[in-house]
């Protein structure tokens, strides 16, 4: 009767009496922030402004589409190669420093793409430390390829170094869960160890790798900060300029709709590959028992490859950041910085609270009333992680402005001239709703998985011992959910700290955060002065990685 254990909660009369009647309605309400912008954007396709469209298709789209496709192809290819090969080295092989690289190669997750970008550009620019030093020592520097060249190689490399950990993480767990047995089976069938790796281990890990790559694709499509630093015109940047430069809402909406076509393709790929991910025989320690010992030259080749990625993606940029931050702390660090930090803290903190609270409610709603509707709404509500921040911001601003006008009209009709002026679309409410749309999945994941570990039998054991209702929540659920809630809160907090486009577009006037400060400094080419706020963001970003590697250690 094991099947019964996994079955949804019984729809018994006794439980039904305790079900909140509007469970599905609640789930629907929580899904709205993610669904409304998508509907608004889809709707904009039907009310196409032909004049705007003519302008876009003539002057904007050709460049933007080409750039986006080129960026996407380059980053996907590069992250797949870097992520998969590093995962193979640390999960299956043994070489000097493997234990260190195993977790250290995740550290680049702490550095947002836009930070890596401005460090790289600042370092390699004409006036940067490298070229200045070369000129001083009399070495010609003109032959260096310009990192911000129009063909986009620079942004591709930088974004790949920032995003490869997604592929690395998933490929690594794929290799770890496969175990050695399949490789040995292949070898008993006459394949060499190397052939077995190519023909068995790699194909088996393909769904994981594809899932990682599709996450990379979504992040690439969503990226705004990195391409801004490189002044590389993609969809997100075009949406932002349409919004602030041309002040054209319909142009921004139409570009967003076009971008969503790419996103949906990536999302489809991700869902498809996720559904093929099956956890293997659970022999997680199988590789660790006897790794493939690399010998001679290949030992050091592996070491050099891992070191190079680690240096370029984390250590060097981090050190450069610290150096710059220290250099400018004396002049820059003033009372304004307290404001930036406090506003970042306030936004990230309240977003974490709101989103985790929503996650807990959504998780309970889907638990208590498991059905097609609640499932659908929880899926829709957590879809926002795939939708670029620029798209969400625009898609939420427009209906908020509409709602605001309605509200204002109503207020005027009631209070006449004494009516208070409201400006919802430029308030913190809008920012938080947009964050919720984007990051609900981030908070929901850990909360929901810890709730699912509280089986129906655990509930019934408590009930049969006379502990029900609030007492049960307090004595059984809360202690078991605590870790999930904390994890969700930390992840959301850090993601909001790093977040750039939503904050830029929807923040109330004067609400400059650390990320906004980084953006402003980089748009002025003040690379070194952007380091100070960026250091704080990176340090905050190290938290969840520590969490992640700790949990990984538990599993192993």
């Amino acid at each position, binding site marked *: *009767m*094991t099947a*019964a*254990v996994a079955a949804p909660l*019984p729809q*018994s*009369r*006794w439980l039904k009496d305790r079900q909140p009647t509007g469970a599905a309605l609640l789930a629907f309400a929580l899904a709205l922030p993610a669904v409304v912008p998508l509907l608004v954007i889809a709707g904009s396709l039907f009310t196409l402004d032909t004049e705007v469209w003519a302008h876009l298709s003539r002057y904007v789209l050709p460049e933007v589409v080409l750039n986006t496709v080129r960026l996407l192809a380059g980053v996907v290819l590069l992250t797949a190669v870097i992520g998969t090969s590093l995962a193979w080295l640390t999960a299956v092989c043994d070489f000097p420093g493997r234990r260190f690289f195993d977790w250290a190669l995740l550290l680049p997750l702490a550095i947002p793409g836009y930070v890596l970008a401005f460090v790289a550009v600042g370092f390699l620019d004409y006036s940067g430390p490298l070229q200045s030093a070369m000129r001083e020592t009399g070495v010609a520097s003109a032959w260096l390829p310009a990192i911000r060249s129009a063909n986009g190689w620079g942004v591709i490399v930088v974004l790949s170094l920032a995003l490869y950990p997604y592929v690395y993480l998933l490929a690594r767990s794929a290799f770890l869960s496969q175990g050695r047995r399949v490789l040995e089976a292949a070898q008993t069938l006459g394949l060499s160890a190397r052939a077995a790796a190519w023909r068995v281990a790699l194909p088996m890990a393909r769904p994981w790798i594809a899932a990682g790559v599709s996450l990379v694709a979504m992040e690439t499509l969503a990226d705004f900060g990195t391409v801004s630093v490189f002044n590389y015109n993609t969809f997100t940047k075009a949406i932002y300029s349409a919004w602030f430069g041309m002040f054209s809402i319909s142009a921004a909406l139409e570009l967003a709709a076009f971008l969503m076509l790419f996103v949906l393709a990536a999302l489809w790929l991700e869902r498809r590959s996720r559904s093929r991910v099956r956890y293997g025989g659970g022999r997680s320690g199988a590789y660790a028992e006897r790794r493939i010992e690399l010998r001679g030259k290949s030992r050091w080749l592996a070491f050099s490859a891992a070191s190079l990625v680690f240096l370029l993606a984390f250590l060097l940029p981090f050190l450069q950041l610290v150096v710059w931050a220290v250099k400018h702390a004396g002049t820059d660090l003033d009372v304004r910085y307290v404001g930036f930090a406090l506003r970042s803290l306030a936004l990230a903190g309240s977003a974490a609270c709101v989103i985790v609270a929503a996650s807990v409610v959504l998780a309970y709603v889907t638990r208590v009333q498991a059905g097609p509707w609640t499932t659908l709404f929880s899926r829709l509500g957590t879809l926002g992680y795939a939708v670029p921040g620029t798209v969400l911001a625009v898609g939420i601003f427009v209906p908020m402005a509409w709602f605001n006008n309605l509200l204002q009209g109503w207020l005027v009709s009631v209070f006449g001239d004494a009516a208070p002026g409201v400006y919802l679309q430029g308030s913190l409410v809008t920012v938080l709703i947009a964050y919720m749309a984007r990051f609900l999945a981030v908070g929901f994941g850990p909360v929901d998985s810890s709730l699912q*570990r509280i*089986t129906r*039998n*655990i509930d*019934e*054991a*408590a*009930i*049969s*011992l*006379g*502990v*029900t209702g609030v*007492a049960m929540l307090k*004595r*059984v659920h809360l*202690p*078991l959910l605590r870790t999930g809630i904390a994890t969700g809160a930390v992840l959301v907090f850090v993601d909001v700290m790093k977040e750039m486009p939503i904050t830029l577009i929807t923040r109330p006037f004067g609400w400059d955060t650390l990320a906004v400060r980084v953006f402003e400094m980089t748009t002025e080419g003040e690379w070194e002065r952007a380091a100070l706020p960026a250091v704080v963001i990176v340090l905050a970003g190290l938290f969840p990685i520590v969490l992640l590697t700790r949990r990984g250690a538990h599993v192993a």
Partner: protein
Amino acid sequence: MWLEMRGVERRFGRTVAVSGLDLTLPQGAIGCLLGPSGCGKTTALRCVAGFEPVDSGEIFARGRLLSSRDVTAPPATRNIGMVFQDYALFPHLTVLDNVAFGLHRDARAARERRALEMLALVRLEDCRARYPHEISGGQQQRVALARALAPQPDLVLLDEPFSNLDIDLRGRLSLEVREILKQVNATALLVTHDQNEAFAMADLVGVMQNGRLEQWDAPYDLYHRPATRFVADFIGQGVFLPGEVLSAGTVGTELGVLAGDVPAAFRPGDRIDLLLRPDDVLYDETSPLTLQVTQKAFRGADFLYTLALPSGAVLLTLVPSHFDHSLGDRIGVRIELDHIVAFPRGG
């Protein structure tokens, strides 16, 4: 009666999970619902626990109505303990705190004393400070039992209590659990698909099929006096041999005329299927009746031989293992029936 179920029925949509279930369990007795998976036994147990309402019929414990079509006393008020198939221990609590969980009405000192007493009963005092994931499956099982017994419930329910354990452990633990239950004079109802477990644990066993309780009896009677063809088939080994009732004390079969008490329901001339257990077919080298060995299974102390009859029907017999015959050998057997177990032909 300590536990009484009267005509209990439970439907899920159109499927009838349990129907017309009647049983009674006296104080201190251990009952068992036995049947193949999907027969409704777990649903019946969950009805007693109160996790499932009943669609008709009544459930009483110590004379109090717990469930009927209109009443479903909340599980928390039933004073019924439950041991779950996966134990459902609270992962965030130590072994001691798990056992003390249901004693929340007691003062702290009394709570701890009682919990320690229960741990002593299941001989796990040494594990009191450990967490569930730090102890073995057999130990978890005993913790679950101690937790269920701690609040001194009127009735303990056990849902497939040994199915997650090794075969070796199962046999040992089922006797141990029975001993513990008897020691505290608990009344218990368990559910299993394993008849060895049922026979080892229970004073009364009910065989269920398709939501119906076919027979509720002591293990000895289930084996020797099965009430239905399904029970005869499900419990123990045996074959059905076609025959015809000749008189109140004799039956005619392919093996000749067999003597034994014929059930009163049959009249001379009725065509029947006669149940022959391996222990009804005795090995006898002097017997004129010899049959060919077609299969043999060595079981240590004895062989289980399958013997072929001229018609193609087969018999099973248990023979001490020093009589080692080859396939194809003819061996002599004698049929010895005390009473006849028979069912209408083909029914």
